[in-house]
C-alpha cells in the first residue's frame, strides 16, 4: 500500500492554513486559492471550496460581499471569533507537535521515552 505522504500531512493542516490566511485579512476565493496552490497546500481551486464549506458549517468562517479593488462585486471570506479561537489553539499545539515528531523520527536522537519538552514551554 503506497501512501502519499504529502497528502496525508496536508490533510491534517489545510483547514488551519486557510484560517491562518484569513486571520491576516478577509479574502475572496481566487485570492485564497492562488496563495494555497502556490504553496502546494491544495491542488486546485476545486479543493478549496469544500474546505470553505466545512469551515462555514463549523462556524469558523463567514462570508460577505463587497466591491473589490478591481471593481466587480466579490464574495469575501473572513474569520469568525470562534475561528480565531480555533486558530489560536492550533498555533499553541503546532510547535510542540512539530518538535515531538522531529524528535521521534530523528535518526540521531538518543532513544528515550521522555518527550523533549512539555506544552507551555513555547511562547
Amino acid at each position, binding site marked *: 500500500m503506497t501512501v502519499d505522504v504529502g497528502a496525508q500531512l496536508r490533510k491534517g493542516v489545510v483547514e488551519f492554513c486557510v484560517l491562518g490566511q484569513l486571520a491576516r485579512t478577509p479574502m475572496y*476565493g481566487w485570492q485564497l486559492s492562488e496563495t494555497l496552490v502556490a504553496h502546494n497546500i491544495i491542488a486546485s481551486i476545486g479543493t478549496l471550496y469544500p474546505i470553505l464549506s466545512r469551515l462555514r458549517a463549523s462556524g469558523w468562517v463567514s462570508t460577505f460581499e463587497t466591491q473589490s479593488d478591481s471593481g466587480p462585486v466579490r464574495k469575501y471570506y473572513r474569520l469568525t471569533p470562534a475561528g480565531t479561537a480555533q486558530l489560536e489553539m492550533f498555533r499553541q499545539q503546532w510547535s510542540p507537535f512539530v518538535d515531538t515528531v522531529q524528535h521521534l523520527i530523528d535518526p540521531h536522537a538518543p532513544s528515550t521515552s521522555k518527550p523533549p519538552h512539555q506544552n507551555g514551554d513555547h511562547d
Partner: protein
Amino acid sequence: MTESSASPEAERYLAALNAALAPVPVGTRRDIVAGVREELDGLDAQQTAERIARLGDPEFIATTALAEIDAAHSAEPSPPASASASASVPAPRTPGEARWFAVIASLLVMVGGFVIPVVGPLIGLVLVWLSRAFTRTEKWIATLTPVGLAAIVMLATIASGWVTSSTGGSLGGSMNSSPMSEGMSGLTGWHAAIIIVFATPVPVGGWLLWRASRTRSAADQTSAPEAAPESESAHTV
C-alpha cells in the same frame, strides 16, 4: 437577469466546469462555479485565456474537489478505506448522477399521480431526495407543500365541522337539518383535502423540473434563488 460580463470563452469554460462538477454536491458545485465566474467577470479574451490557464482543466478541478470531499468523509473516526486522499485520481466512483435522474424524479412527482395514484408521486419524492440536483431546502419544500396544504385544509374542515354542529344546522334551508347532508358537508371538506394532496404535486413537480434544469445551466450565478428563469445557454448533453 444576468449581470455577468464574462466573455464567451469564459462562458464556455464555466459550462464545462459546471458539467464536470456534476458529481459534486449541489451547494459546493454552485460555490465553485460562482467563485470562478467572479474571477472571470469583466476580463477580455486575452485575460480570460490567461486566467483559465491558471485555473486548470475543469476535470482536474472536479477531481480534486471530489478527492477533498472523500478525504473529509474518510477522516471520520473509522479507519480510512485507503490512502486515496491524495490530490491525484480518487478511488473510482460512479460518474455522477445521470442528467435525466432529476428530470424523471420531477416528472414522477408532477404526473405520477395520474398513472399510479399516491404511489407515483411518492416514488418521485423519494427519487428527489436521492437526487443530487436539489438542495435540502428544495427537497423539504417539495415534501411539505402538499402535506402542509392538506393539513391546513383538513384542520379547516374539522374546525368548520365544529362550527356547524354547534350551531345545530340553523344555517337556514331545510337541507341542513338532514343528518345525511351534514355528513355530506363534512365529507366534502375531506374530499377537498384529498384533492389538494393529488393536485399540489403538479405545480410542485413543475417547480422541481425548473430547478433541476437551472442547476444544469451554466448561467448559474450564485446559490441564491432568482425570480425569473434564465435562458439556458451552452447546454452540454
